[in-house]
């Protein structure tokens, strides 16, 4: 054993390696991304790891490996589970031979996601066990427990950390590499009655799964991570309990009065540890359920109370005592407990008298980001047209902000293309554009293009190819020609894919060559049918600036056209209206030089 200061996601990766994982696959997505990156850095040579094109592919790759007896780890963010849901729902019936732990990082808030969905609820739907860690040390332990359970019961198992566990850090004791388990997969054995899903198999498996989960509930009541913590003063009346799990257990522990309550820490929200819950409820008058996202623990306790006719009042989200959405915090949970215990809550920090209004900081495209140039080219070319700009998931969603204002819709990965198609069927006179990033194109954009082409749509697909998966921290994808293992492989050409689908108008252009880019957009958009523009220019984190731009103040007339057109964070207006360039941010993209009406900006150059 040795001690390391680890991020929750790093702890999950090291826990999986310690459990002898053989095959790891996932798609990047905040807050889950660092798990695969850590496996990549810390794995032994015999561990296979890949960035898959999407979560469905990742889960299927691991299903195949697990059929052949391997211990497998699949990672994704909460919404990624929706993409992987199809294989997962069936795999729950089929089961695995080796092991499969699916880490799904939920995101209360949401801080970096489209939804506040709850993988604990998904576990109930898929009928597979789910572990819910409260911190970094828990995550390290639980991923190993999840592997053991998966292998023993031949079922996929969820580990569902939330953002504060994924991105929390703690110094914890971890196993030395020499102590990692070694797993030798036994290989695939042909057995159609086991591996081929048919209705007859499904109905039998369904019954077995329900029976297994019922007995697992009893067994998990004795799982040490599901814990009953007794109140310090048993005479207090009314007798109060708090039921919680995940990071909220840590928040409860930070709250004054927690020692005066009985506490149920639920580490396996599904199957719910009912026997332990009965112990917890015994003699209590009221229970407060402290959890984020869905009221999973609250519903389970209501069910237990109903089944056993217990006169315990269960409070939580359903009763209106806990807010229905959003992230909890130390302060919010402390206030909840104070109210529940009938104590005065800690005084809220006094509002600052006479405080000035603070500037707002929505996330923005980086200085020099090529997406800004791509959006500007389309905006200028379509200035006089009726248009819709369907966006997608990635850095380029930030094109919605002023002054660009170039994202009219955003739904989920890959949806921009097919949404543009749908709008076009209803509004034939609208020029429909779909913006999609390179990684998103591979993840789920291609089927949309096929659908639009086959069904005779009229739209322009704009692929923003910056040669990386930028938003999640620059992971490679099929177009980059590099794998997660660092191997150089043949890159998949986006242009060739589009042409193979049947598109005849496909133009690749450098968006930083502004006038040319505007011309290309005008020309391509006027063609009938489905056509595509690939704006190819590397992310500023991938390229290296050669020289920053600078402003000649004798020629700057203070019109601020650069600021108002581009919204680049490196352009800083001074009090007299003239514009300066923040050299610490400028990467020399030269877009401001090209929009300046007096030629006052020059000198920029990028690789």
């Amino acid at each position: 054993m040795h001690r390391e200061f680890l991020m929750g996601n790093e702890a999950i990766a090291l826990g999986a390696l310690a459990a002898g994982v053989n095959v790891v696959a996932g798609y990047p997505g905040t807050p889950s991304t660092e798990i695969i990156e850590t496996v990549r850095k810390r794995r032994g040579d015999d561990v296979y790891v890949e960035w898959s094109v999407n979560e469905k592919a990742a889960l299927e790759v691991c299903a195949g490996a697990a059929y052949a007896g391997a211990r497998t780890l699949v990672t994704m963010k909460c919404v990624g589970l929706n993409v992987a849901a199809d294989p997962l729902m069936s795999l729950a019936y089929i089961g695995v031979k080796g092991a499969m732990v699916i880490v799904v990082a939920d995101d209360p808030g949401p801080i970096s996601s489209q939804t506040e969905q709850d993988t604990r609820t998904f576990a109930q739907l898929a009928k597979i066990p789910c572990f819910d860690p409260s911190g970094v040390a828990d995550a390290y332990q639980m991923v190993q427990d999840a592997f053991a359970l998966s292998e023993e019961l031949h079922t996929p198992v969820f580990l569902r950390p939330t953002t504060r566990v994924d991105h929390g850090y703690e110094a914890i004791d971890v196993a030395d590499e020499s102590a990692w388990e070694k797993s030798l997969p036994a290989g695939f054995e042909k057995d159609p009655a086991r591996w081929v899903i048919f209705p007859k198999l499904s109905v039998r498996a369904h019954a077995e799964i329900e029976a297994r989960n019922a007995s697992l509930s009893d067994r998990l009541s004795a799982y040490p991570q599901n814990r009953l913590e007794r109140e310090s003063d048993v005479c207090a009346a009314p007798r109060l309990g708090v039921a919680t799990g995940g990071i909220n257990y840590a928040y409860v522990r930070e709250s004054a009065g927690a020692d005066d309550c009985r506490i149920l820490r639920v580490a396996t929200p599904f199957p719910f540890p009912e026997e332990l819950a009965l112990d917890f409820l015994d003699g209590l008058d009221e229970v407060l359920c402290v959890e984020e996202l869905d009221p999973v623990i609250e519903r389970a306790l209501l069910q237990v109370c109903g089944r056993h006719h217990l006169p315990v009042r269960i409070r939580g989200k359903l009763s209106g005592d806990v807010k229905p959405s959003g992230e909890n915090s130390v302060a919010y949970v402390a206030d909840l407990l104070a109210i529940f215990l009938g104590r005065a809550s800690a005084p809220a920090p006094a509002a600052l008298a006479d405080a000035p209004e603070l500037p707002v900081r929505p996330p923005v495209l980086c200085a020099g980001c090529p997406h800004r140039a791509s959006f500007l080219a389309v905006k200028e070319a379509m200035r006089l047209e009726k248009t819709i700009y369907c966006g997608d998931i990635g850095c380029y969603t930030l094109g919605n902000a002023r002054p660009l204002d170039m994202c009219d819709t955003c739904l989920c990965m890959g949806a921009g293309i097919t949404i543009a198609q749908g709008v076009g069927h209803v509004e034939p006179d609208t020029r429909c554009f779909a913006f999609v990033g390179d990684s998103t194109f591979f993840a789920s954009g291609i089927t949309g293009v096929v659908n639009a082409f086959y069904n005779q749509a009229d739209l322009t697909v704009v692929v923003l190819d910056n040669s990386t998966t930028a938003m999640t921290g620059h992971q490679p994808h099929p177009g980059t020609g590099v794998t997660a293992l660092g191997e150089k492989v043949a890159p998949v050409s986006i242009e060739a894919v589009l042409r193979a689908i049947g598109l005849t108008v496909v133009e690749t252009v450098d968006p930083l060559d502004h006038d040319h880019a505007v011309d290309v957009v005008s020309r391509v958009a006027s063609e009938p049918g489905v056509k595509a523009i690939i704006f190819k220019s590397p992310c500023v984190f991938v390229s290296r600036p050669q020289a920053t731009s600078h402003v000649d103040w004798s020629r700057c007339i203070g019109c601020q056209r650069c600021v108002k057109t581009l919204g680049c964070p490196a352009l800083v207006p001074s009090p007299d209206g003239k514009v300066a360039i923040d050299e610490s941010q400028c990467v020399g993209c030269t877009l401001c030089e090209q929009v300046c009406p007096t030629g006052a900006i020059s000198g920029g150059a990028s690789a």
Partner: protein
Amino acid sequence: MRRDIVLCGTGGQGTVLASKVLARAAMNAGLSVKSAETIGMAQRGGSVVSHVRVGEGAASPLVGLGRADLLIAFEPAEALRQLPYLREGGTLVTSDRPVVPVSATVGGPSYDVEKIMATLEAQAPNLTVVDAARAERELGSAKVLNVLLLGAACRTGRLGFTTDQLRQAIHESVRERFVELNDRALDWQG
């Protein structure tokens, strides 16, 4: 020793490295440490906050409002935004140089740095202001704001580490060719 420290700034300013340095200093001193970071979309120029909790007895990686012993701000508007984390009698160390967001130049709320600094002076009695622009001129680099602020925080005596402990942790956290620059930033006093 228990110390709850909150660091705040904007994406890309180097708050994450600063909190890692503090965590390393704590581990070197044999102390428990937990921390939490803002990672994801907010890193694209948004407000970012790091929490560092040193010493036994911290259950959560996040510091509660009104409980931070020390607030280290990389930027004045962020100092004011996160001021509610500071406990009564807590210490604020802030850079005085604003990072003006794009929103303030295209119609969003404006950035009144003088009024913000005046509010900080009125609300935070234990205030240390670091002249970031002058420090950068004298150090010849804009990339060491994090170590500059850690040095100033250390000299308030509220960080709980000596300068040498901090120096050791920095040396273990940055690339060798940046060690000399970071040493000068750590020791810089305006």
